[in-house]
Structure formats: structure tokens, C-alpha cells
């Protein structure tokens, strides 16, 4: 059994969950018990910190009670997040938990890092003689920030399906895998009535914060682009990006190549993407440059309506009169302009 301070630092571990089951309070006790007041406060603090600073934050773990309260605050924060019920919020919170772990992990022993990896389904093996780690290439791909050149597999030593990386790099893979796991868990859980009641004012407060953020983003003008002249397909993709939904690659591809054809610069395109909750400028810039041809010699053509349909990103139910006349979203946009001029 690991000591309590480890579980307090990494409350997502299965062992922490087991500890709560064996020694922790029931949900009712956690919500109402005087003893757990502190856990409740920390739980809300986790969420606030994640939203504001991108890290759920450090607290003293000196005494046994400190550690216990910290451990119990984790499921509580998660339950509240589920009740806030917003994708953007969940993502911020998941990232905050993952960053917190990431900041602590470099102090841990290799065997601990390997154990955590295993719990997160990263197939990794520590090679003691050279002090590095062998990771199955798929788990590397899934979790490495390959938008940076140095992380691309082509710039890594790989042999027989395993990528050779440092322990420090392994913590980066753990960060991503953990972030994704928490996010998926939050998205799949149902809100609990008792939580909604006990934390109604905090939940409202969080919802307001999120709405405010979204309003600010919507109001941001998007260069010379006329949003209302966009065809339904592009409007949909844009809205999804701004709401922080996970837009599949083809959708992003279609939008970026479309905007590129309208002569928007990379920076202008980036501005549109900057509203997404997990927006990372360099990553997006990399992808945009890839599509517009700024970083390679080929620039990709913006797909036509037929292709949009095969990829399932032409919202057939929202097609309007003009849609039926055109074969390309670009034609849609330019005929809207023409029609306006002729009025």
C-alpha cells in the first residue's frame, strides 16, 4: 500500500479510490458531515484553481488529516464538475488535474512512473542500464504532443515498435493520457441530485463563468469574414469549434482550407480557433500551416459539397435554397456576396 501523501498527490490512482471505499465517508457524509467541511472547501478550490490557473493547486499535506481531506476532495470536485454539465468546463478541470500530477511526477521514482503509466494503459518499460523508457509506439502516438517537431516520431529512436524516451518525456505522456481519461469520465457520468442541491450556488457560479467566457468569445470579430454569409456547413463547424466541441479532423480541414481560399491569413484563422477551450497556439498553427501549405509545398484544396457529404459534414437538414444551386461551399459564399451587391 502506498502512503497517504502519495495518494493525496495522485488522487486519481485506483488505490486512492480503494482507500476512499474502505476508509472514506459515504456520499451523504461527504456532503453534509461537519468533519468533511474542509474536503468540500478543497473540492471547490480545485475547480476554481483549474479554471483560473490551469492547475488544481497545492495545499499543505503535512498532517494525516490534511492528506485525507485532500484525497476526499477529489471525488467531490468531480461530482460538482459533472453537475456543472459543460464540456468546456470539464476540459479545463481535467487539464487542471493532469497538470497538477505532471508537476509532481518528476520527483517520483522510475518504478512509480511505470506503475502510473500502466494504470493509464501506456505500455512502458524502464530500461535501467540506460535510464530510459521504451514505450509502445501506439501509446506514444496517442499521448505525445507530436505537433512539436521534436516530438514527432521521425525525430525519435524507434525500433521494433517501441519508442525510446526519457523519464521526463514519459511524464508528458502521462499528462495527456490522464487528461483524456478524466475528461471522458466526466463526460460519461450523470449529475447527482444531492450534489446539485448541496452545491447549487457554486454550480450556478461556475455556469455563469463559463457563459461569460463564451459570450466574450462570440463577440470577438473575425476579421474580414462575414459570418452570416457562410454556408450552413461552415457555420456548423465554426460553432462547434467555438463551443469547444471536439471537431473531427475532416471538419477542421474543411474549414481551414475554406478560409484559406478566402485569403484569410494564418493569424486570422488562428484567431477563430483561439476560442476553443483547449486551444494551443503552436499546435493549431502547425496544423493550419500544414493545410494552407505554409509549411509544406502543397496547399490542400477546399472540399466541394459532394465530398463534404461523403464525409458527413454537410448538414443535410440545414441545406437552404442556395445550397441546392451550388456545388462548392466557396461558391455559396461568393454568391451570397453577389446577391447582396445586386440588391
Amino acid at each position: 500500500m502506498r502512503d497517504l501523501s502519495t495518494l493525496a498527490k495522485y488522487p486519481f490512482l485506483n488505490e486512492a479510490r480503494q482507500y476512499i471505499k474502505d476508509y472514506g465517508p459515504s456520499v451523504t457524509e461527504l456532503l453534509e458531515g461537519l468533519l468533511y467541511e474542509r474536503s468540500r472547501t478543497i473540492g471547490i478550490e480545485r475547480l476554481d484553481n483549474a479554471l483560473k490557473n490551469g492547475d488544481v493547486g497545492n495545499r499543505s499535506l503535512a498532517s494525516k488529516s490534511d492528506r485525507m481531506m485532500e484525497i476526499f476532495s477529489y471525488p467531490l470536485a468531480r461530482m460538482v464538475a459533472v453537475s456543472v454539465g459543460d464540456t468546456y468546463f470539464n476540459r479545463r478541470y481535467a487539464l487542471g488535474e493532469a497538470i497538477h500530477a505532471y508537476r509532481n511526477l518528476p520527483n517520483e521514482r522510475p518504478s512509480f512512473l511505470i506503475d502510473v503509466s500502466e494504470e493509464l494503459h501506456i505500455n512502458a518499460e524502464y530500461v535501467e542500464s540506460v535510464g530510459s523508457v521504451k514505450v509502445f509506439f501506439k501509446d506514444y502516438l496517442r499521448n505525445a504532443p507530436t505537433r512539436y517537431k521534436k516530438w514527432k516520431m521521425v525525430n525519435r529512436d524507434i525500433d521494433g515498435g517501441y519508442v525510446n524516451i526519457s523519464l521526463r518525456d514519459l511524464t508528458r505522456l502521462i499528462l495527456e493520457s490522464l487528461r483524456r481519461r478524466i475528461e471522458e469520465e466526466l463526460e460519461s457520468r450523470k449529475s447527482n441530485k444531492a450534489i446539485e442541491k448541496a452545491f447549487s450556488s457554486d454550480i450556478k457560479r461556475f455556469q455563469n463563468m463559463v457563459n461569460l467566457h463564451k459570450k466574450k468569445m462570440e463577440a470577438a470579430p473575425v476579421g474580414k469574414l462575414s459570418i452570416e454569409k457562410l454556408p450552413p456547413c461552415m457555420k456548423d463547424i465554426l460553432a462547434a469549434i467555438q463551443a469547444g466541441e471536439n471537431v473531427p479532423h475532416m471538419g477542421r480541414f474543411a474549414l481551414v482550407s475554406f478560409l484559406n481560399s478566402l485569403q484569410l491569413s494564418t493569424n486570422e484563422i488562428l484567431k477563430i480557433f483561439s476560442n476553443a477551450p483547449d486551444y494551443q497556439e503552436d499546435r493549431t498553427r502547425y496544423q493550419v500551416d500544414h493545410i494552407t501549405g505554409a509549411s509544406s509545398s502543397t496547399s490542400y484544396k477546399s472540399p466541394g459539397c459532394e465530398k463534404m457529404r461523403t464525409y458527413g459534414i454537410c448538414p443535410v437538414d440545414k441545406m437552404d435554397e442556395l445550397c441546392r444551386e451550388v456545388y462548392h461551399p466557396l461558391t455559396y459564399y461568393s454568391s451570397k456576396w453577389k446577391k447582396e451587391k445586386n440588391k
Partner: protein
Amino acid sequence: MTDFNPSQKSLEFLKNKFQDYYKKNKIELPDRFGRRELAFVLFGGKGMIRHSSFNKKKDLLDFLKERVPQHVYYSSAYYQTPDAPKMQDKNWMGAELIFDLDSDHLQNADKMSYDEQLEIVKNEFEKLVREFLLGDFGFNEKYLELYFSGARGYHCHVKDPAIFDLDSNERREIVDYITGRDLIDSYIFHEHITGRKHYGDHYFPSGKSLKMPTPDQTGWKGRISRGIIDIVDEIRKSDDPNKSLQEYGVKKKDAEKLVMELSDERVSRIKDGLLDQSKTIRKFFLNSALRKTAVTLSAGETDEPVTCDIKRLIRLPFSLHGKTGLKVVKIDIDKLKDFDPLRDSVVLGDDLVKIKLNQSIDMKMKNEIFNLNEGEQEIPTYLAVFLIGRKIAHIC
């Protein structure tokens, strides 16, 4: 009547021959075939029939025998509802990893014969399979299926369940690896300090050399190293090293300098992993070695390699290619070297047929050499189908 329309007659002829094939031969169907989308192009039909699926093998086989499609495709993806008309309703469950190498990306392809093109693609394909898929990625041989595409290239299907759920970004990373995209030169070369001078308490590097990986290193390091050594050997062995360097795109002046510098001693230093050259020369070596050792993949519809597309349709193994009559045959990895598409994928009969050639031809098929002049000729069925399919001949 359509009798006077040669293209109509030719089409009828192709269809008949295809029908014979589908009636007489057992077609091996892909695994989990009920979960796949199937698509067809019929002879003379406009467009593609999509979103079909078959629960029973017999139903598909009957379809092939009765409707006799010119082209048959299946989805590399598995779906919960493969015949749903909208892609998003199919419910994607995973997909094989597909590599498609075709001669249409080759430079100067139009100056080469069909054989020559296919030979180049085959070498490229072999490199992909051996060095990258089996080597660097460590796939188990039992998960790799190799096919001749029936026309101008080769397909490799990777059926390792571990990679079925890779998304298209992850697949693109694999493509970038194989094509050597974004390789950083500081990952390959390291500056190495060879001597020091000291002034008072301070040491300064007095000599620097560039350390290059050795040929036995793994991944791209070893690959680039082997590439550079090959290039150096090639240049030194050639009758006119200056000229062969210029063919690599090196300027005349640089070429002369480089040739002068490539002494025996220098070459053995390079083999030991020391490459003390100017920046331009280093760039030249890196780029040339990269071009030599990377694999070029064919682009799909979005100008992106097919590999990244997780909902791709791909020609059904064991079907006939509608423009050549050649079979999409499976190739054993060990037999790849000797595989000759114009011999090993010919499955149609050799009954003689009268056709009219639009141009003279000079080719080998099924181990027979054909030197034929323009005009009416009597040739075996398999050749007739091949030539008609490629629009070089028609039924008269």
C-alpha cells in the same frame, strides 16, 4: 443497335470475361466481412454504387456473378451499420491501416514502360514493408497482407488489432515517419568538439566536427547514415563523379570541391560517423539520403495519403481490376522480390480474340512476348482485356 459502337462491344466483351472469372473462381472474402461497406462500379454504369453490405458470403458472390461489376471496393473500416447511407450513421468501429503505393507519383513516369514503373514501385513497396513496417514498427508478419493493386501499384493492409482504433491524426504521424517529413537535422547530426585551447582559465573549442550516426543505429539515424555512405560510394565509383554529384543537384563548384575532398581517409571517417563538412554539403547529404531512403506514398482525394483516411474504400482483394483484367492477388512477403505482375496476376484465359490495336505494342505478358503492329490482330483473351481496358485496343 449498338453493334456499330465499338466501345459498347468492347465493354460487353470485358463484362463477359469478368463474368467467367467470377463464375469459375472462389473469391476469398475479407475478415469480418459483414461489418464492411462494399461499393461497385458497373460496366457502363455512371458513378459508384455505395453503402452496400452483405451478411452472407453467398449473397456477395451471387452479386458478383450476376451483376458483374467492373470495379469492386470494400471499406478498410469496420462499421456497426455498414449499409447506412450516411457516413455518420454507420458507427465506425475501427479500421485497418492501409498503405497504397502507386506509380502515378513517380517522376518521369510517362517516360517509362509499364514494367519499369511497376518495378520501381515494387522496390519502394518492399522497403516500406521490410524496413518500416516489420523493422521500425515491429508489426508481426502475420498481420501484414500484401496485394498487387491490379494496375499500377501495391497495397499493404496492416491487420494488427492493436492499431484498429488509431485516428487519422495518429495515422498521419505514421505517414510522416515513413516519408521522413519534418526530420530535424540536429536530431541526426551533432557537433562534436575535437580540440581545446586555453587562455588563462578559459577553455575554447579549437576544432569542431560533425558527428553523424553510424549505419547500425536504429530508425532514421541508421537509415540516413546508410544513405550517406551509399551516396559517397556511388559518387566515388562513378566515372565522372562531378557529373553524378550534379545529378544530385549539387552546384558545379561545390561538386568539384566535394570530389576533391572525398579522399579515402575522409570516406573512412564518414563511415566512422564523422562528417566535417560545410553546412551546404551537410544539407545536401541529409536531403539526398532522406530522398533515397524514405517511402513516397500515393495521395488520396484530399491530396493526403490514403493511410490517414479511416473510412477509405479500397479495391477488394481477389477481384479483377476493371481497367486491366488483372487480379488483385495476394503476395507472400518472401515472394515479393520475384513477383511479376504481368505474369502472376494474369488469370483470364488464352482463347484467341480478334481486336483492333490503336498503336503498336511491345510487351511481355504471361511469359510471352508480344510485338504487335497497329491494326487488326488476334491475341489471347487476357492480353485483349488488358489492352481494351487501357484503351489501346477495341473489339472489331
